[in-house]
């Protein structure tokens, strides 16, 4: 039985929650009341068909990016493909690596082209697209819930990112083996800031995959399709469990990830990245944008908190 898209305000009456199948968005727009209404209306209209559009192209979008014909495809599919193509020459990647960010970007764009907003965000399960007008900024908290039982939803903040209008970043995404999507690496969380959300999604995936100790037998890896038969990763082993690591192993794994993050930084694909592994955090890029919470008194914007 098909469940239609579910759209409702959260109990605070400000944030809009839109859900359809695996897509789960939290949206908030700031500005004039009438403009906010217009923006939400446009976001809802765009959201109503997004999943159907994606599903109609799903077999294509689960293929390796380099093998896909770019010309056909809906607007979300094109965003996905554009985000992963810069990586496809060096590694196996499918457009699905950018699906969450691309959806966030698409909905945000529908809202900002329909209304005049001071700020807005679309948070698609931790992949966030931002809109800022002159003089505005967002603060995003980065949390680590790996140390506690996930079910209890007790999370510790390990960093905060302040994004100003003058910064290039408009997309935030997080990837790690504990997340909803599969990871080939062992990072608990890699958070990336990029100019666009779809790229953040793809880049976080690539960097998190690189935070790894290749060949370490203590890390449990299982072919992706043994867990999810129709997964785009096919038989590629994905991380299912990571033992406690000694500090040397942690440094090695983080260094492997940092090398990839630096390369993406030099290619201009990302603005900054924070790599988090068993309590250690490595920050690459604009350190001004990614701060440890103790170094700043910026309030944590809970609505942007993501794990």
């Amino acid at each position, binding site marked *: *039985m098909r469940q239609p898209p579910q759209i409702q305000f959260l109990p605070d009456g400000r944030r809009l929650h839109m859900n359809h*199948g695996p897509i789960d968005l939290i949206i908030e727009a700031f500005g004039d009341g009438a403009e906010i209404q217009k923006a939400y209306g446009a976001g809802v209209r765009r959201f109503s068909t997004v999943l159907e559009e994606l599903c109609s192209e799903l077999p294509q979008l689960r293929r390796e990016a380099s093998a896909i014909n770019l010309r056909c495809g809906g607007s979300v599919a094109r965003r996905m493909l554009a985000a992963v193509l810069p990586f496809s020459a060096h590694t196996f990647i499918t457009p699905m690596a950018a699906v969450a960010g691309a959806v966030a970007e698409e909905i945000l764009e529908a809202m900002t082209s329909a209304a005049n907003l001071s700020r807005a965000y679309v948070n698609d399960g931790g992949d966030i697209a931002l809109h800022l007008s002159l003089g505005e900024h967002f603060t995003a908290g980065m949390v680590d819930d790996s140390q506690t039982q996930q079910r209890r939803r007790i999370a510790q903040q390990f960093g905060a990112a302040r994004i100003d209008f003058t910064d290039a970043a408009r997309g935030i995404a997080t990837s790690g083996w504990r997340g909803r999507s599969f990871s080939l690496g062992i990072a608990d969380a890699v958070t990336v800031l990029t100019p666009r959300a779809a790229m953040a999604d793809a880049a976080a995936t690539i960097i998190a995959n690189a935070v790894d100790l290749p060949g370490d037998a203590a890390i449990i890896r299982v072919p992706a399709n043994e*867990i999810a038969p129709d997964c785009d990763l096919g038989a590629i082993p994905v991380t299912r469990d990571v033992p406690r690591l000694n500090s040397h192993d942690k440094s090695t794994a983080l260094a492997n990830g940092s090398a990839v993050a630096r390369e993406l930084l030099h290619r201009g694909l990302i603005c900054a990245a924070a790599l988090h592994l068993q309590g250690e955090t490595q920050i690459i890029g604009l350190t001004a944008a990614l701060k440890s919470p103790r170094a700043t008194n910026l309030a944590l914007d809970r609505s942007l908190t993501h794990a």
Partner: protein
Amino acid sequence: MADDAIRCDACPVLCYIKPGRTGACDRYGNREGQLVRLDPHVVLDRALTHGDALVPFLDRSRDWNGDIVSGPEIFVTAIGAGTTYPDYKPAPFIISSEVAGVDMVTVVTEGIFSYCGVKLKIDTDRHLGAEESVVRAQGEPVGHVTTSEYGSQMLSLGGVRHLTGGTKNEGTVTCETLLNLCNGKSVELSVDDGAKVVVQAGKAPIVNGAQEERMRVGCGSATIGMFAKQWHGKIDEVVVVDDHITGVLSQHQAGKMLGIPESGIKVKGRRSTPGRYFQVAEPGTSWGGTNIDDPLTIVSSFNPKFAWPGLRLLMVSTTGEQHAYFELDENLKPVEKELPAVLLESVSRIKENCEPAMCSVLFMGGAGGSLRAGVTENPVKLTRSVRDALTRVTCGGAAVYVWPGGGITLMVDVTRMPENAFGYVPTPALVAPVEFTMPLKDYAALGGYMDRVRSLESVLKANDGRQRVPAHAANPWPLAPAAGSEPRK
């Protein structure tokens, strides 16, 4: 499929899910080959209901808290507990707790009901459709109009014939309709050759786009009886328009008793007894559940032998929502005038005495063999134990009515159950929570799975996504000793 993976159809992604895994959304999963919703397992907490400060789970200081109510304040419901179908194996949770010195057992399972449906009571006098008419949702037949009740139209929805006996789409739409109604969501229904009605448990129905506000105070005749004294001396004739029985004050027994003179009014329809008329018009959604908008269409004439110029006539519907006031001219033709203030009060009083119109949704289902087999190795003993009131049956902690006769066929008011208590499987069939609570001794006697009994403490300790919700204040506490029960030897 050889690997027992199943195709989830909850959204267009159509994930292919292996046993024990979830789909891309993390909300639907493959549990023993069945697609199930994996929302958190719900436990009722009395402290939350009473608004007391929350106490930590199993705090030692709770051994004696001075409360007269004894027994655990936490009841584990079947919502999200999982199911036994189609394997004949013990229920997912069999929980022991001590209540007033007696060891009690609650067997907790989610039942998959193909034989189930919803009895829908819609408080309205408006005609929704003829008895036996087909009720549709999204164009698919999902039930029928059944015998109406006082002030209410009744629909019977679902049932195995619509769920699995028709086309695939009929089954899917029926399941969706039942699920939405049971989970307190609104549903639009249309009756063949009848009305369109939007219904939602605990909310007023919307009939053909108009929100119903009140139930009628009584039939037209009863209304005459109730208000005759208040009208006496202020008016010469009152007609209470009603699709069932239209009442005429001067001819009605109540009017006669008060010595109200004959007015000579001639009303259409079939006279039942003096002052009481059947079928004054066709059923409809206007005045008193008839199809008339102009009340004078049911008055054929005034007999000049009795009527007089200036005669004052009030016409009113059984809910007081419609009313009109007339005076006869010299040709004995009624002329509409403004309602005198002195009569306004009686019209408002009719309205005041009408209760708010509501939709009530009762889930009704029969516990099948496999569900009962999840409780005991000898299912018929469970049936007998329920019949003998030794075993208490609840749905999500809500009290149920168990039908007399064979089997365990129960009805429950869905508004007494926690939110989103119902799920579905693609069979299609509804998934409803069922709990059986009984003394441990009785559980052993009826062949229960004694080796599967776990303490409440151990269930609550295993922190796997259990959600504590307040118990519904109107429900008897599922673990409270039954009223009038005596300790059994």
